[in-house]
């Protein structure tokens, strides 16, 4: 009897270990993934939905990941793929916070906590999304992954399944396009990540 109960136990325990291992690997990249998703969708809620969707998808495929050291690359590849799929099916409907800054209390709270001004975050999120939407999807991914997400060129090359040279070319191309879209000193507001530092300083 004892033997049989021991035989039945490992399934849930293994599942729990599997889950803990997955979450241990996920949490260090979670903040970047969420920021990434919210920036490219231009929406706080759509970004959270996108990350949740990617997490569930990644968890269902976790057993297929052989090299756990490359978890962040693997997870971001899934995240980007989910973004492309969801956007092509029009499941993402970015909410324009700028249009109704006094609208939903959740947005109000989230934006006020960040910048003190409910309209500011919404405006900048929308502007960032608009700028990124003018880039080719692969250029957008490269500029985001190499820049704020902090991946190396080699890692991005593996995510995009292309050569290092192609990654760098895309990055420079994206940079040139962005420079044309928003000329120097064109931002008339204080950037969110530079608290206390104004444009003139």
């Amino acid at each position, binding site marked *: 009897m004892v033997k049989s109960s021991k035989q039945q136990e490992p399934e849930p325990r293994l599942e729990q270990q599997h889950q803990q291992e997955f*979450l241990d690997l996920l949490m260090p990249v979670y903040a970047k993934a969420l*920021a*990434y998703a919210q920036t490219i969708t231009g929406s706080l809620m759509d970004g959270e939905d996108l990350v949740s969707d990617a997490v569930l998808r990644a968890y*269902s495929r976790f057993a297929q990941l052989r090299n756990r050291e490359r978890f962040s690359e693997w997870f971001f590849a899934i995240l980007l793929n989910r973004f492309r799929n969801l956007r092509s099916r029009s499941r993402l409907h970015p909410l324009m916070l700028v249009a109704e800054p006094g609208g939903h209390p959740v947005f109000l709270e989230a934006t006020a906590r*960040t910048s003190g001004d409910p309209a500011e975050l919404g405006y900048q999120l929308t502007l960032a999304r608009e700028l990124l939407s003018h880039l080719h999807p692969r250029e957008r991914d490269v500029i985001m992954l190499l820049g*704020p997400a*902090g991946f190396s060129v080699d890692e991005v090359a593996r995510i995009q399944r292309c050569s290092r040279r192609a990654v760098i070319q895309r990055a420079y191309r994206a940079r040139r396009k962005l420079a044309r879209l928003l000329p120097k000193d064109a931002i008339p507001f204080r*950037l*969110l*990540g530079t608290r206390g530092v104004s444009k003139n300083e």
Partner: protein
Amino acid sequence: MSEFQTKPDNAAEKLIQSVFAAREEESDPTIARLRFERRLSTNPRQPRVRTAIKVAAFFTALLVLGGWAASLPVHPLEDGQQIALKLPQDFCTAEYPYWVAVLAKHSNRLSEQGGHSLIVDYVEAGEGEYYLHLGILGVDYTQANEWVRSVLKEVPALADSSYSITQPLVPYRTSVRNMLAFKLLGNTEIVERDVVRAWNAAGDGLSSRSFIYLITRPADAARRVSMVGF
């Protein structure tokens, strides 16, 4: 160009990085972990089957089921009758819709007895004589006979007409495969072979004047009647 400088060098990049940094700063991995722990526990990992395997399994199942279903026999039906009813001498083809309406009106009684299909047609038998050909499904010989008698009694123009239930039916069995070939490809030969086999088995050899008449309707695909006549 050997390495990319990640530091933003234009206003747009600075804006994107600042938005990114603000969102990164706002997120709370501890709360997220608790949320995902609960969510992953309620949505346990499902064993994933590759799409190619799913497609292969689907087609294999389709082949196996198709092979099995195709050999299923379709049993013969014995509830079809054909009646030849002589029309009045003054009948002209323009009146045909009128006779269809008359028979449709009397078909209510037929349906009360279980009949579900009445096919009306007319043929010219030479010298200005016309016959109505009625194909009835769902009733036996006696019921069909009683029905046609009642029609003759109630329709004055047919009071002196004669009729005949021209041929007994030759029920035959076939298979789903043959019926599908008949329905989808219009392959009548294979079904006619079944009819000839059944007719010969019944003891009446087919003469050179015989013909096989197959009645099919979309809603009644498996129901068919073979008739040998005239």
